[in-house]
């Protein structure tokens, strides 16, 4: 049994693992290595680590330049700065020329509950998803965080990966198969589908347990790749179940919910209810769970939405073909 631990700690450990076997791995940070956990790499490989100071735009450019010389740079800072302060540098200097840079950002969503809006990123998935050439990852637990980090290193091209801050429970088997662009089916079910990413995957599993008590069989999918999103799996669920509930620690606009809606709208119109931050900024809070429940980003809300999706099916005039 693997203990709960923050995904960022697993990321730091996996960077060291990568660094041991691959001398092309280099790591950059913008003065928060102890928080992002790139400090683990910094201690082990000081010559391949660069703290560029509080200069995220410069960090992205340096990472781009390093990539042109054959290095595999991992550039880390908080998600709010990686995707917004340095957005255009990521787009023009990294994504457009398809440089082999991995941007791994922590403190995504409202995981930095205490610091408030300035240090929370509820827009990062939407922003990174809109940039061509960019792969967008959002692993849910320590096991898939390690696998996602390894997969990002193997993939040739720009990758954005979002991580949180607080301890993550293990939700996957230790031998789970991780493939970029392929959702992981955590629970089969034919009544309603719960598609979640990152932290919310665990909440979706809790919701599915609750629903099971009332006889509802909910399918639970871990959408660890926001882009390219697994359209086949979304459409399978749209066809086989009454509807979809998405869940993410992100604005309900443009992230996982948006991606799922885009797929079903054009291929198989389906009811989709989105759990997330309802297009607003969050407050500071004195605990992550408290903040999530205050903004209704939790198992209770997922359960409620699933029930609403099912109720809608029961009053629909004709069965789905």
């Amino acid at each position, binding site marked *: 049994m693997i203990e709960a631990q923050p995904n960022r700690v697993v990321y730091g450990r996996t960077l060291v693992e990568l660094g041991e076997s691959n001398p092309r791995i*280099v790591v950059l940070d913008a003065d928060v290595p102890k928080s992002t956990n790139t400090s683990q790499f910094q201690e082990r490989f000081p*010559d*391949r680590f*660069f703290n*560029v*100071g509080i*200069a995220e*735009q*410069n*960090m*992205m*450019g*340096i*990472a*781009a*330049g*390093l*990539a*042109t*010389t*054959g*290095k595999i*740079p991992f550039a880390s800072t908080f998600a709010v700065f990686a995707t917004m302060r340095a957005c*255009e*540098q990521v787009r*023009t*200097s990294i994504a*457009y*020329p*398809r440089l082999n840079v991995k941007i791994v950002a922590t403190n995504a969503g409202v995981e930095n509950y205490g610091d408030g809006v300035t240090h929370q990123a509820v827009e990062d998935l939407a922003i990174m998803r809109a940039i061509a050439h960019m792969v967008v990852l959002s692993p849910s637990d320590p096991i898939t965080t390690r696998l996602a980090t390894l997969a990002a290193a193997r993939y040739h091209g720009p990758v954005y990966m979002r991580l949180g801050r607080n301890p993550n429970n293990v939700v996957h088997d230790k031998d789970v198969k991780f493939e970029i662009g392929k959702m992981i089916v955590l629970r089969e079910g034919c009544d309603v589908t719960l598609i979640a990413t990152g932290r919310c995957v665990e909440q979706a599993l809790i919701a599915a347990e609750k629903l099971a008590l009332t006889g509802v069989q909910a399918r639970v999918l871990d959408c660890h790749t926001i882009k390219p999103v697994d359209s086949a799996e979304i459409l399978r669920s749209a066809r086989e179940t009454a509807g979809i509930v998405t869940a993410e620690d992100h604005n309900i606009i443009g992230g996982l919910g948006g991606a799922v809606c885009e797929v079903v709208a054009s291929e198989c119109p389906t009811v989709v209810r989105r759990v997330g931050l309802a297009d607003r900024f969050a407050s500071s809070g004195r605990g992550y769970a408290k903040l999530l429940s205050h903004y209704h980003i939790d198992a209770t809300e997922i359960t409620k939405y699933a029930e609403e999706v099912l109720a809608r099916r029961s009053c629909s005039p004709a069965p789905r073909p």
Partner: protein
Amino acid sequence: MGIDLDTRFLEEKARKLRRNIIRMIAAARSGHPGGSLSAIDILTYLYFLRMRIDPSNSSWPDRDRFILSKGHCSPALYAVLAERGYFPEEHLWTLREIGSILQGHPDMRKTPGVDMTTGSLGQGLSCGVGMALGGRLDHKGFRVYVMVSDGELQSGQVWEAAMAASQFKLDHLIAIIDNNLIQSDGVTRTVIDIEPAEERWSSFGWEVWRINGHSFAEIDAAFENCQALHGKPHVIIADTVKGKGVSFMENSVKWHSGPPSGEEEQAALRELSGVGRHD
């Protein structure tokens, strides 16, 4: 001065490349002639004399790199790359056309010889810092040349990169400021002044050289000096003339951007033909 500096050869090359710049921008019906003409002497020198490159192998890992951070002056870079044989000259007349290998701003994935995608001002020097770090990690001796414009120094990221380069002691990084004194909306001094440039760069930990950016003797001396001094990044502040070589374009804000008319193109090409010149 380098022993084999053939000033006449470089001047003739630069004159031909100026003609190509005018013809490219006229053909594209848009582009930036002023800054292309101010930069071309230094580009000619770098690509024909200074840089260790192999045009038949544009991804040679040991090559010197050049980043045109002032990417809107791509016609100058394209002209010199074609002249060095990276691609056939006829591509020059496709500038800015759909599907052309010559995009409005330099694209490292489309144009052989372009080392970095640029065009959003302020970003190139950071990429140069990364390249220089990569070269040092691999114990390669290549140098990284980054050309920025005077107006570009108003962008904060340039100074982030300047601080990092001196912190990391990147002596194989050479920034060149094409100081043509004019930016899009007017005279740089009256927009946001970049002077005193020598003091500013020096205080950021750079070795500073100030030269006439149209004198091959001065250009050569400055780049020669950069090779010799270790432990610090170098910046060459090259005082240049916007639109250099075409009298009606010189020192003119109007010619920062925009194509010459057919008549203007012919007038410019006549001036650059060398006929009646005493050099």
